């Protein structure tokens, strides 16, 4: 069993374990055309994350250092960076877990850099948007003004559930060797989201997504290196999603893919009794 590097319950965490040198790639596309590396010595305690170390640097050593962050708990996906040669979330990476006295920090590869550790994620969101990552149905009136919930069994939900955990941090795109060579390749993030909606039984947009997702720079360009799945901090397996999408495309090309009608609105319960203590549902807000 791997022993987590974080502090145990009740353990003292204010003792400095060691000093770690952070070598940070500095760059500003507006003012400094050539990048440089700055070194900072940071005292590290048990549980100190790379994000904590960056805050320490900004507060005590160099206020001009830039990076992006928000939630500090691996939810928002803002603080993705290249930490010791691997794309990780700074808030999710404990310094002591890296088992190194020198830590290299660079902005995410496969993206342009705005400043220091801030990548330009616009291309990620553009590609994401291009696969139409939302429920598309013929009866959009029902979607806009729902009369109930669309039926979906647990088994049907489990076909795409893990892919919904994507936080759009871009780590998979930074890890992907195909994105590194083919800038037009959609990449693991958007392809996974295309697959997520394609297999959702409430969705009918498979045909509308196919021209992008199965185009010349779509799913077929995946070399199945699996780096995306290794990098994902949320346990999503984009490489798996792409292979499933390829399988569906193969079947579709041979006319073997079953046509599917989107699930209907589930019938309202007409009988049954609510358990004691269960309150009324809140008023609809949308």
């Amino acid at each position, binding site marked *: 069993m791997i022993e987590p590097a974080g502090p145990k319950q009740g353990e003292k965490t204010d003792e400095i374990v060691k000093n770690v040198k952070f070598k940070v790639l500095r760059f500003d596309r507006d003012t400094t055309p050539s990048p440089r590396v700055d070194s900072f010595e940071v005292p590290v305690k048990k549980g100190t994350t790379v994000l904590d170390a960056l805050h320490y640097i900004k507060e005590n050593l160099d206020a001009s250092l830039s990076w992006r962050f928000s939630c500090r708990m691996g939810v928002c996906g803002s603080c993705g960076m290249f930490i010791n040669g691997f794309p990780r979330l700074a808030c999710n990476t404990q310094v002591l877990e890296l088992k190194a006295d020198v830590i290299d920090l660079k902005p995410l590869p496969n993206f342009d850099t705005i400043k220091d550790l801030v990548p330009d994620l616009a291309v990620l969101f553009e590609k994401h948007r291009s696969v139409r990552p939302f429920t598309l149905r013929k009866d959009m009136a029902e979607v806009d003004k729902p009369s109930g919930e669309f039926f979906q069994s647990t088994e049907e939900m489990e076909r795409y559930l893990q892919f919904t955990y994507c936080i759009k941090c871009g780590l998979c795109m930074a890890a992907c060797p195909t994105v590194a060579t083919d800038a037009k390749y959609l990449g693991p993030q958007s392809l996974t989201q295309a697959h997520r909606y394609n297999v959702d039984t409430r969705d009918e947009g498979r045909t509308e997504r*196919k021209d992008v997702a199965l185009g010349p720079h779509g799913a077929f360009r995946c070399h199945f290196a699996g780096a995306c799945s290794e990098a994902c901090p949320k346990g999503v397996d984009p490489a798996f999603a792409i292979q499933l999408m*390829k399988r569906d495309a193969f079947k579709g*090309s041979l006319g073997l893919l079953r046509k599917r009608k989107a699930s209907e609105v589930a019938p309202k319960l007409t009988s049954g009794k609510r358990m004691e203590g269960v309150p009324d549902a809140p008023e609809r807000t949308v």
Partner: protein
Amino acid sequence: MRTRESTLWTWHLIAGVLILVLLGIHMFIMHLGDFFGTVEGDALAFSSVMERSRDAAFAVMYVLLLGAALYHGLYGLRTIIFELNIPEGAERVITVLFVLAGVALFLMGAYGTIAVYGARVGV
């Protein structure tokens, strides 16, 4: 869920499987037939090659193998070139050039196989 690219890619896979089978048969006859005693004489000798060229099954097999290998190879090469960030216009030109080259090479190879087969059986 079919696009032009998904159809091309599906045929790429099918061609790959076809190559595995047909090339497997070819390699077995050429290099392992003696070992397993399934081929009489020297499979690589000129007389054996001529003997096989009279066989319609071999002629068909080699034409199929040629087609599968050309398609699989050229599609693969096209994919590699597409990953080099070339403009869309260049992608179209490359596709057309590869189709023309593939068809020309296939006709040339198939003509050779059929001509040898026809000459041997007196067609």
